[in-house]
């Protein structure tokens, strides 16, 4: 039975798009560009997992980076210290992240709204502190925990294989996209969307809001951890900044910029954010900003400055982000044709 035809129509489109990108990948022959896009796809995937919380369940978490870092450190640690291969290390990382998500989620979900945001922020900060101060010898005394090359297949190593990393990221994005799509279409996913609107209403239907929110929190965390594992392979290390609040805030920026609760909005936001960050930095080194006076040129040379300004404008004037703007355009266009 096809009850919501328009809801499904874009899925094959997205799959075809992904297929097209993979086919044309060899054309993108520049390893630097491939690396940029590999990172961009990973952040798009991460933004999707964040959208599951923020967009689909209405949970404003400031601690999502914790799970990304937990996945990355879990896998990198298991490989470096215990000399595990990538597959068991991944499984370990996912269980590790699940445990953390269960504990932090069950605690943080005792409060709501803004207080929840603060508590998740605090938990992530605790994780960040552990990584930064290298408590318990997490990273062999180095700032970053390097990927142990012997633990991953050879075709993921070296500059010559950047194309494989690009594909790995793309596949990761596709997996996360399908997972999020599936979850939001499931019975439980519908309860999340109901919770986003009215929690009391859900509770008088006989559904415990806490349990459903915890499920969303843990699943989003585990998926973020999976992205973290892939990030270790793509970027060759796990580092403290993965777990910083800055990471979560950039996820927030991506999702809001792209458009909340639309799935592909998060993807566009993620890719755009990463590509723009890199591109704006290049712009600066090429001297494009030298004509500006120092007081404005200084901040302008920071990509975060421009992205932050765009973000504020989007929140104030275009609540639906890029997806929302396109939707309004489509509505306008569609009605004028008819």
């Amino acid at each position, binding site marked *: 039975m096809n*009850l919501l035809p328009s809801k499904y129509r874009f899925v094959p489109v997205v799959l075809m798009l992904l297929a097209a990108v993979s086919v044309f990948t060899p054309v993108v022959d520049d390893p630097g560009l491939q690396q940029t896009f590999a990172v961009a796809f990973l952040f798009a995937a991460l933004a999707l997992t964040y959208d599951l919380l923020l967009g689909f369940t209405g949970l404003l978490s400031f601690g999502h980076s914790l799970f990304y870092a937990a996945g990355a450190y879990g896998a990198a640690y298991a490989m470096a210290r215990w000399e595990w291969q990538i597959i068991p290390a991944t499984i370990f990382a996912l269980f590790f992240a699940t445990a953390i998500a269960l504990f932090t989620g069950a605690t943080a979900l005792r409060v709501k709204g803004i207080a929840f945001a603060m508590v998740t922020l605090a938990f992530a900060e605790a994780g960040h502190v552990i990584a930064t101060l290298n408590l318990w010898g997490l990273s062999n005394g180095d700032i970053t925990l390097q990927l142990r090359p012997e633990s991953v297949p050879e075709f993921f190593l070296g500059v010559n294989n950047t194309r494989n990393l690009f594909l790995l990221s793309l596949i990761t994005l596709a997996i996360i996209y399908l997972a999020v799509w599936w979850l939001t279409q*499931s019975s439980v*996913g519908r309860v999340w969307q109901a919770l986003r609107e009215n929690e009391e209403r859900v509770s*008088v*239907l*006989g559904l415990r809001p806490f349990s459903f929110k915890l499920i969303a929190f843990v699943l989003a965390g585990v998926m973020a951890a999976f992205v973290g594992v892939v990030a270790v392979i793509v970027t060759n290390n796990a580092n403290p900044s993965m777990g910083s609040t800055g990471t979560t805030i950039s996820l927030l920026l991506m999702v809001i910029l792209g458009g909340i609760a639309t799935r592909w909005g998060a993807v566009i936001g993620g890719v755009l954010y990463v590509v723009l960050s890199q591109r704006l930095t290049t712009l600066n080194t090429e001297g494009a900003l030298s004509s500006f006076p120092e007081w404005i040129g200084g901040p302008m040379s920071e990509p975060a400055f421009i992205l932050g300004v765009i973000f504020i404008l989007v929140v104030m004037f275009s609540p639906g982000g890029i997806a929302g703007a396109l939707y309004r355009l489509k509505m306008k266009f569609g009605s004028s044709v008819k």
Partner: protein
Amino acid sequence: MTSNAALSVSDLSLAIGGAKIVEGVSLEVIAGETLGVIGPNGAGKTSLFNLISGLRPVTRGKIYLGDDDITNESPASRASKGLGRTFQTSSVFTLLPVLENVRLAAEAAMGGSMRITRRAYSFKPAIAKAEEALAAVGLADKRFTPAGALSHGDKRRLEIAIVLASDAKVVMLDEPMAGMSVENVPVLTEIIRSLSRDYGRTVLMVEHHMHVVLGLADRVAVMHQGELLICADPQTVVKDPTVQSAYLGKSL
């Protein structure tokens, strides 16, 4: 507790910072009846509903669903034991389609059927039940409309479809007619009447429209300043002098 009471409260009280919102209310709703609760604004009617459905913790008193003491249970657990309610200000899930609003209620009532592995629209029994409830309130042709796009009257119908699909034995309706246009009142009245007549539900309703309550309810309870003045058949209530001075005398 008498065995034929579907829902009963005894000495139910709610105080917020010294202000007595609900004070010492004892009430029995007999299985299968429709009990109307009336009273002026601020009489504590909606607060009474919030206490019974568990959205507010009680200050004092007990709540029983049948013989089951539910005073300290969560709203969700009360609902899964067969207590359903609607809200005064329409609170349907505006971004979800009409059918989805009702389907969620139906699936929730089917106990433990929520699955993360199953697509929401592939669970036929819940859909069948939801379609049935929508047909009963006359919303079948609007099932794919986002609930937020419904007219006010249709939202009120949807609220009733939701409690209908949720299998609640005891249905609490919080001002179902609020904001309805005059010509829509008789239709909705008929739908509410069918809740007890055709579906065997026990109905507890708060309503402002006096003639609706007097026409629908088997018994009427009058609240004033948080207290229960009287609970009797409509004729007795209308003639009661304290009620007349407290409520009818002013608003009629």
